[in-house]
C-alpha cells in the first residue's frame, strides 16, 4: 500500500532494532527488535490495521510490564520505612514487601507516588499533612513546612 503521509513511499513490513515508542505512561519505551510494524520505506511513518494494533500492543505490554517492575525495584522504600509509607498511602500492612517479592507490577498511580516519596521524603510528610488537614483547606497548605 502506498504511504498516505508522504505520498511517495510504500508501506512495507519492517522489524528493526533501536526503535522506541510512547506506550501508556512511558514516552520512549523500547520496541522489540523483532516486532513487525508496517512502515513507509520513504518517510518512516508507521501504520496499523486493527490486527496490527492488537499485535503491537501485546508485544509492547510485555516490555511495559518489565519496565514497571524495574522501576518498582528502583523506588520501593527501604524496609525500615515501608510501614510508614503503607500507612500514609492506605496500603495493607506488608503490601510493599509482597510487591518486592512478587512478579506483578503495581498500578502506575502507586508507582508514581512511590517515586515521589523515594525522591524526597518531604513528599511523604506532605501526604501526612494532607491527611491531618480538615476540609476545606487552603491551596498552599499541603506544601507548607
Amino acid at each position, binding site marked *: *500500500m*502506498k*504511504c*498516505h*503521509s*508522504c*505520498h511517495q513511499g510504500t508501506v512495507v513490513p519492517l522489524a528493526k532494532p533501536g526503535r522506541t*515508542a*510512547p*506506550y*501508556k*505512561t512511558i514516552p520512549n519505551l523500547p520496541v522489540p527488535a523483532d516486532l513487525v*510494524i*508496517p512502515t513507509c520505506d520513504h518517510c*518512516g*511513518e*508507521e*501504520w*496499523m*490495521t*486493527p*490486527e*496490527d*494494533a*492488537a499485535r*503491537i*500492543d501485546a508485544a*509492547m*505490554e510485555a516490555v511495559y510490564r518489565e519496565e514497571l517492575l524495574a522501576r518498582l525495584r528502583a523506588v520501593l522504600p527501604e524496609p525500615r520505612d515501608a510501614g510508614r509509607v503503607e500507612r500514609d498511602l492506605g496500603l495493607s500492612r506488608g503490601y510493599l514487601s509482597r510487591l518486592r517479592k512478587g512478579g506483578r507490577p503495581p498500578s502506575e498511580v502507586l508507582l508514581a507516588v512511590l517515586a515521589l516519596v523515594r525522591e524526597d521524603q518531604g513528599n511523604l510528610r506532605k501526604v501526612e499533612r494532607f491527611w491531618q488537614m480538615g476540609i476545606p483547606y487552603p491551596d498552599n497548605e499541603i506544601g507548607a513546612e
Partner: protein
Amino acid sequence: MKAKKPHWELDRVKALAAQGKLFLTKTKAQRFFPDAASAVATAKATIADLSERQFAETLHQGDVCDVYGVRIGGAGWYLKITIDDLRVVVSLHPLQRPLRTNAGMIGGASGGASSADKPAQGAGGDSDEMP
C-alpha cells in the same frame, strides 16, 4: 448556506470501518492515545457516529481526503479519511485550530468553545501536518 458534501460516501466509509477495514497512522496516534488498540477503537467509534454535519472540507493532496471536525471527550478533534484498497485510511488527532464544519465552528485543542467569529482555518488548516 448550502451544506457541503463529502467526496467519500459516508455509508460506505462507515461500513468499511465497522468491518475493521481501517488503516491508521500509528506514529501520530501514539501521541494522543495510551496504546494502539485505544486509537483504533476511538477511530472506529468516531466513524460509526459520523454525520455530514461534522464535515468540513475535501482536500486534494495526493489523495482525495474528507476532513471532519468531531468532539471527543469534550474537545475538538480533526478526522481525515480517504479510501484506498478497500480500507478507510484514517488520521485522527486533536484540533490545533478551529475548523468550520457544516454544523458551525468547532474549537481547537485549548478546548474550547466554538465561536463563529473566530477565524476559519478550514481550508488546509491542518493539512500541512497531516497524512
